[in-house]
């Protein structure tokens, strides 16, 4: 080696020269590699930003809804006397519109006129009369939701030029709208319908409350089942299980279940819970069962980590003063491991909240208008609602879908935030 080096120095080429010659290139390669790494991270953050930007950009306008003010005369002739729930309320709306635009006469024109107002206006009047029957026979100015196309036009998602050509609006309708606007009869108000009603075919009447309630019941079932079972399995595997093949089998199983595609759990739910046990379709109960099986591995793995983090000295101390093994675990190990287990459970619940595919398999994709009130009522959940609306052709549903996504993301952030808070608050270093 040394003779080689001396040979090279004899030739006038020293090793340090070789190193120096390559140094610039190597430094450049170093820079390039480093920049590639940074670019990779920035690329993923860019995608994240793009995703949030496009969803918020599409969804924020759903917080507002266009309302039209109409002067309604609650005609006693159109409402049954003893039963105010029974009446021709859509007819009342039409009459009010006719009075506001007396120059509209043709049948086709009238139909175009009625199209400006949501078909939910009649229901709104009915609700008002039911709440206060003295309204009958009186005149009142009422804000009613506009049709979804009008709403989109007012929010600037549809253009007057193009959509008149495509036949979505005709010129007359635009004139009427201009007149209403000049009379200050068009206003954008906070969209309470979106947060207080169930699904609907009409975008302006569709809301997320039904889906939120469905998600709530489904997650409640999931939590009530998966948390106790998960904690119990974690305790058994960490504290009692002997090291043998049987335990190994359970461990491998849990790890594998954590990586099985979620749709396979849906197939299981369909074949076992629906076809074998005959449980009702579309019910939060079945959804919760399927999601329980799916989240169990997550909760068990988190629970085991939490139990492992409790130092053995705690156990030794408890055993030393005469506690039985079960007492040691119940009185000392579990309370200390509980924050970690709760964190794991919340993260598992957050994942279950965003899960869609297995719920499609057990029929939670049905079109359900009513807000579910129990575990066996047909229901849908938030992510499935997003999926259903994303399939709808109306332009207004793009906005609603984005808004529903935002609602889903808000819930997810709240849950994950809670998990982070719990971890920070109760984290203990031994």
């Amino acid at each position: 080696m040394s003779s080689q080096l001396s040979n090279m120095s004899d030739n006038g080429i020293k090793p340090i020269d070789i190193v120096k010659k390559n140094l610039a290139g190597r430094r450049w390669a170093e820079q390039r590699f480093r920049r590639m790494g940074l670019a990779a991270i920035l690329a993923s953050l860019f995608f994240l930003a793009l995703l949030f930007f496009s969803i918020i950009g599409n969804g924020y306008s759903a917080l507002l809804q266009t309302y039209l003010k109409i002067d309604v005369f609650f005609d006693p002739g159109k409402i049954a006397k003893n039963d105010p729930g029974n009446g021709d309320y859509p007819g009342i709306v039409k009459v009010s519109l006719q009075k506001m635009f007396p120059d509209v006469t043709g049948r086709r024109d009238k139909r175009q006129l009625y199209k400006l107002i949501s078909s939910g206006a009649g229901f709104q009047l009915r609700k008002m009369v039911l709440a206060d029957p003295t309204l009958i026979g009186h005149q009142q100015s009422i804000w009613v939701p506009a049709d979804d196309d009008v709403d989109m036009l007012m929010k600037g998602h549809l253009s007057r030029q193009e959509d008149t050509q495509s036949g979505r609006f005709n010129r007359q309708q635009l004139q009427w709208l201009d007149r209403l606007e000049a009379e200050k009869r068009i206003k954008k108000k906070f969209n309470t319908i979106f947060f207080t009603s169930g699904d609907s075919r009409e975008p302006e009447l569709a809301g997320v409350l039904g889906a939120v309630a469905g998600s709530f019941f489904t997650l409640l079932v999931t939590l009530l089942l998966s948390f106790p079972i998960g904690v119990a399995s974690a305790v058994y595997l960490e504290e009692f299980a002997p090291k043998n093949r049987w335990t190994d089998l359970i461990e491998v199983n849990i790890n594998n279940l954590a990586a099985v595609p979620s749709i396979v759990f849906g197939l299981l739910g369909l074949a076992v819970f629906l076809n074998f046990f005959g449980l009702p379709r579309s019910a939060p109960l079945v959804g919760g069962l399927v999601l329980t099986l799916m989240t169990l591995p997550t909760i068990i793995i988190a629970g085991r980590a939490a139990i492992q983090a409790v130092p053995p000295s705690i156990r030794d101390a408890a055993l030393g003063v005469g506690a039985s093994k079960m007492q040691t675990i119940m009185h000392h190990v579990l309370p200390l491991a509980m924050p970690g287990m709760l964190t794991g459970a919340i993260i598992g619940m957050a994942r279950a909240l965003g899960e869609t595919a297995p719920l499609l398999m057990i029929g939670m994709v049905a079109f359900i208008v009513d807000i579910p009130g129990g575990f066996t009522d047909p229901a849908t959940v938030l992510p499935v609602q997003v999926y259903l609306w994303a399939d709808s052709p109306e332009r207004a549903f793009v906005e609603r879908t984005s808004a529903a996504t935002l609602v889903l993301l808000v819930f997810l952030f709240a849950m994950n935030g809670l998990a982070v808070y719990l971890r920070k608050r109760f984290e203990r270093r031994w």
Partner: protein
Amino acid sequence: MISPTTVLFILLLLTGTAYYIGLRRSVAVAGGLEHVRKLHSRPPYYGAMTALWCGIPALVIFAFWQTFEADIITNLVVAGLPNEIRNLPADQINLIVNDIRNLAAGNIVSSQATQVIQEATSHYSRLQQTSHTALAVVAGCVCILVLVIVQHKISKTTRARNQVERIIFWLLVSCSIIAIFTTIGIVLSVLYEAIRFFKAVPVAEFLFGLKWSPQIAIRSDQVGASGAFGAVPVFTGTLLISAIAMAVATPIGLMSAIYMSEYANKTFRAVAKPLMEILAGIPTVVYGFFAALVVAPVIRDAGQWIGLDVSSESALAAGLVMGIMIIPFVSSLSDDMINAVPQGLRDGAYALGATKSETIKQVVLPAALPGIVGSILLAISRAIGETMIVVMAAGLTANLTLNPLKTVTTVTVQIVTLLVGDQEFDSPKTLAAFALGLLLFLVTLCLNIIALVVVRKYREQYE
């Protein structure tokens, strides 16, 4: 009207009472609160013992009753129907039974309720009422009987704590077995339906056939009367989309992990890492919506702009978004693997004069390679099993093509389209979904096992 919920509530109430009675009894046996030291266990254990002995049998009876009640009542009601209805084909009887059930539950039914149906409905309601009452009586009696016996047996030497602990122990064991039952349940349910499918369609045709069109016409003289179940186009579609996803996720994820663990300073890591984790926490349906709303139109327009014919449901859009979804998965796993490489290896390379990137490329990455391969395998299994992105952004038609600009379909999309909506359970069309599900389960299982083995082996090397 006693509902099952009420029965359950009564049973829980009885169990609570049993706890209290057991507790009082043990104190009484000891001869007052000041003498409880004479007991073998502390009084709450006696209470718990009594409650467990009363509650568990009653709840087991309740569960079994609930499971079999509906079937027995339905059979009784069907047996009580007039002969002309009972002789109808099985599926029509099912429809009638459904109507009866819905009527009994007070729901709206599809057909007009005839006299016969009305009678059957009241029969059904009567039977249900009887059954619920009987359940309440039987379970309640068992509960009370056990309570009387157990509280009679309580003495100073009764080892209540040991009994309670033994019961809890077996509860823990049974909970941990649920994981195994889940796996068995998946395998059996999917396998059973898949075998029924393979009776109608040969395995070889399914695995190697080149044509997939599962829609079977109702009449035999229509086009596509038999359906075609060659799944090769579906497999290639899945592989194509997964390959695109991995082509996006592997370089970006790996480079992110390298930068994060080797270059980034503390503050950068503290900001960037949680943000990357957000990417992992976003529900897949949101990615699917993003793909359909933003990415697919952009790709289509870009394609048109350079003169390419891009389908609006191109494999590229779905694969790209799926890749974004998988980035944090690859990066966090690779991050762990890179961090597990001992510092000594790096220090050795630096001592020889290697730059940081040379150390990473020639020392750290080769050392972490098995772990990285494992994490990529796990990511592939994720990509193959991913459903919502492809359902919303990829197509339904099974094209046998490797062109990423064309529409392809995947295994998961087919499962969803075959099983969502109206289905009859005997047609090969619905059963095909289970065959695809079986295949999906097996493939992901293999990938996961290989990945877990590789990762575990590698981890042991440096520990």
